[in-house]
């Protein structure tokens, strides 16, 4: 096989894989709005998933956001002071930290913890023939396994990203008081004046899209496992690489949306 044929095959595989993921996403997205999706069994899985993803992680998440947030805000504020750009504090806090940094760091943390777990869980279930078992009992895999995880991804990322923003803004309040002698009233006014409603909507939408894809891709790759135990690490690594590629793509698309 020539180099061009190999390259062509790779490109075809990549495009068909991408098209497959988009088609699967469409199918799953439509199910979100169907009433029959929300059976008692599905709701139970959803509650458990939200607990595992958004509640169990809270202590670590709060610690990371307080430590990282305070350090980051401290550095940004001292830079602004040095450059004489203190009048832009509000814009930087809202435009950069709330709408860009919070969703991105949140999605990274959740991907490392939950996406990897979901990918492995699906692959193990496939290898153990548990997926086949569910099919034998006429339990729809998308309704029972996929939907709770996807909805959990959307809810968890939106909530945790909002929490991250709140922690960062609180740190900002503290640092602005210490470094610029700014009162809470002035700080709040500064933030409100710099807030663009469309930016907040885009940030929330971005979180939802992140949540959708960082759960959908691991599930899709996990379900590709064969009967062999050795297929588990293969599909998990493929899934995680694709999740990170998706995160970067979503980030680029959201930046483009902001620019246009």
């Amino acid at each position, binding site marked *: 096989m020539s180099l061009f044929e190999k390259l062509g095959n790779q490109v075809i595989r990549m495009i068909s894989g991408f098209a497959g993921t988009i088609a699967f996403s469409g199918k799953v997205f439509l199910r979100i709005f169907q009433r029959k999706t929300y*059976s*008692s*069994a*599905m*709701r*139970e899985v959803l509650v458990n998933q939200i607990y595992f993803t958004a509640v169990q992680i809270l202590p670590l998440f709060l610690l990371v956001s307080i430590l990282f947030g305070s350090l980051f805000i401290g550095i940004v504020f001292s830079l602004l002071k040095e450059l004489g750009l203190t009048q832009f504090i509000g814009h930087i806090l809202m435009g950069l930290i709330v709408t860009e940094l919070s969703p991105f760091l949140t999605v990274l943390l959740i991907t490392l913890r939950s996406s990897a777990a979901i990918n492995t*869980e699906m692959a*193990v*279930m496939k290898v*153990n*023939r*548990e997926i*086949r*078992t*569910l099919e*034998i*009992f*006429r*339990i729809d895999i998308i*309704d*029972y396994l996929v939907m709770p995880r996807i909805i959990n991804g959307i809810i968890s990322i939106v909530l945790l990203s909002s929490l991250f923003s709140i922690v960062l803004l609180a740190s900002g309040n503290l640092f602005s008081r210490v470094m610029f002698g700014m009162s809470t009233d002035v700080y709040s006014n500064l933030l409100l004046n710099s807030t663009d409603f469309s930016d907040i909507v885009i940030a929330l939408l971005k979180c939802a899209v992140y949540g959708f894809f960082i759960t959908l891709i691991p599930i899709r790759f996990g379900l590709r496992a064969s009967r062999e135990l050795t297929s588990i690490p293969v599909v998990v690594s493929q899934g995680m690489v694709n999740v990170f590629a998706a995160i970067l793509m979503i980030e680029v698309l959201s930046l483009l949306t902001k620019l246009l």
Partner: protein
Amino acid sequence: MSENVPLISNQDVYMNIALIKQYHENMPRRKAQQLALTYLERFGLGAIAGRRNPALNTEERFCVMLLRAAMVKDAMILIDQPFQIVPHLQDGRFIMDALKIIDDLYSSCHIYDYRWMEKKYGEL
């Protein structure tokens, strides 16, 4: 039910059983789980309700798989090579006793096995 149709390993025993009712009949979680617990008690297995598949012995696993199969509405249970699920049994008495305990939960039951296993079933 068959060795190739295993219990869901990331769910407790009672959730495995309740799942069928919760999914197909949209039965509320508490009611379905209470039902699962009641049926487990018939086998004297209430204590294993909170365990997961790897923590069960073969007899317990058989009973749980049987109950799960019986949760289907108007269940027609088909047991494929039961001695693969409970390999150390000398004869089919345990299997028949288990089926008798929940005979009100299914409409019919068929056991499939190789002819050379016939003597294990004896007169049954």
